[in-house]
């Protein structure tokens, strides 16, 4: 495989980090539907791990 650029290497970590940070903050400052959505966003890193371990390998 050709060497990857920084952008390629950090694409997924950045997306996951964005979901995590948004989830952490919005769940604290908002209640109701937005809070539920934030909790869902916080499950994203866990979902990625489950997917990689149980489905891709």
């Amino acid at each position: 495989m050709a060497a990857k650029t920084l952008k390629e290497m950090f694409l997924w970590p950045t997306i996951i980090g964005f979901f995590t940070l948004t989830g952490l903050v919005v769940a604290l400052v908002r209640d109701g539907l937005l809070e539920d959505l934030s909790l869902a966003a916080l499950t994203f890193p866990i979902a990625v791990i489950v997917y990689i371990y149980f489905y891709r390998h």
Partner: protein
Amino acid sequence: MNIKSIKTWAWVHKWSSLVCTAFMLLLCLTGLPLIFSHEISHLLGNEVEAPEMPANTKSANMDDVLASAKALYPTRVVQFLFRDVDENKTWTVSLGKTATSEDDTKFVLVDSRTAKVLDEPKFDEGFMHIMFKLHVDLFAGFPGMLFLGFMGLLLVVALISGVVLYAPFMRRLEFGEIRKDRAPKLKRLDTHNFLGVVTLVWALAVGLTGVINAWSDLVIKYWQFDQMSAMTAPYKGLPPPTHYASLQTSIDTAQAREPNMRLGFIAFPGTSFSSPHHYGMFMRGDTSLTARLFKPVLIDAQTAKLTDSREVPWYLATLLISQPLHFGDYGGMPLKIIWLILDVITIVVLWTGLMLWWKKRKQSPAEVSQALSQADKTTYVLAKNVQGAK
């Protein structure tokens, strides 16, 4: 990135991690039960529930609530009256030998609707107390807190250097690729990198807020010096009160000042969150965020009249907001479970990191150079190419 800077970052990552890993493992392990402290206390039968009553049952007069607790310990001084953020049936009263004594405090749980004593919870013994002390200060008080805070800072350094090192290792790997069929070392390395980068932001958030919490005693001391002393300045040098006004009347005054907030806790005269002349009424809002940003309302303890009320300054707000972000207690059971899973994954990252160092340590220098990862070689070649092109 050239090979020299990779080596520097690798050195930073290795030593910042090595120094803090044992403590981080301890914090992750003791933190697990603390996430569920409420549920565990309940399961262990250490938590007495107030009986169910119709929702419109009136609250008892707070002077009666106070009197019930004081009747058990007439010679003691009431320090605080408090309840959890989602609690509305009980108040807990703490009574010390003096207003500021911290050891041998008695706690009395009182039904807020009947003013009847429900229980005398022991917050300073048992399994959860041991977990709490190990997590907060290693049974070493303020120096222990600062020490763990410093370990938290090292964790942040380890996380940042880990991200920098992620790039040279991932140059020829897919995101999430784990080389399971190659040497165990590679599998361990890939697992460490993958789980580390996926949980990075959470670990940074919990690490940084943990560091802020470690400074809480100093932040509160500064707030007292900065704000409390200014608010109570007119009372400076006056003799302490000889009689005290009704607690209920004092609460009513605070409630009238902040009609849209509700009482979170009361600091009694002479404690660290009030002055010898005041009830410190700490009001909270009704959203997840504002419920944690206590607003102090100082009530003259002799006249039950308002003395002053100020917004919390930025540094105290930072501390108060960093608490839920560290505890994970602001999104009900779903958030606690997310905290649990991410905590366990962090333990795996710490453990695989430790094993990577341990196994490498036992190799001879010849093996180390032979085992130099593909990533390092690639980077080296790339670096040479870049330099050649210049």
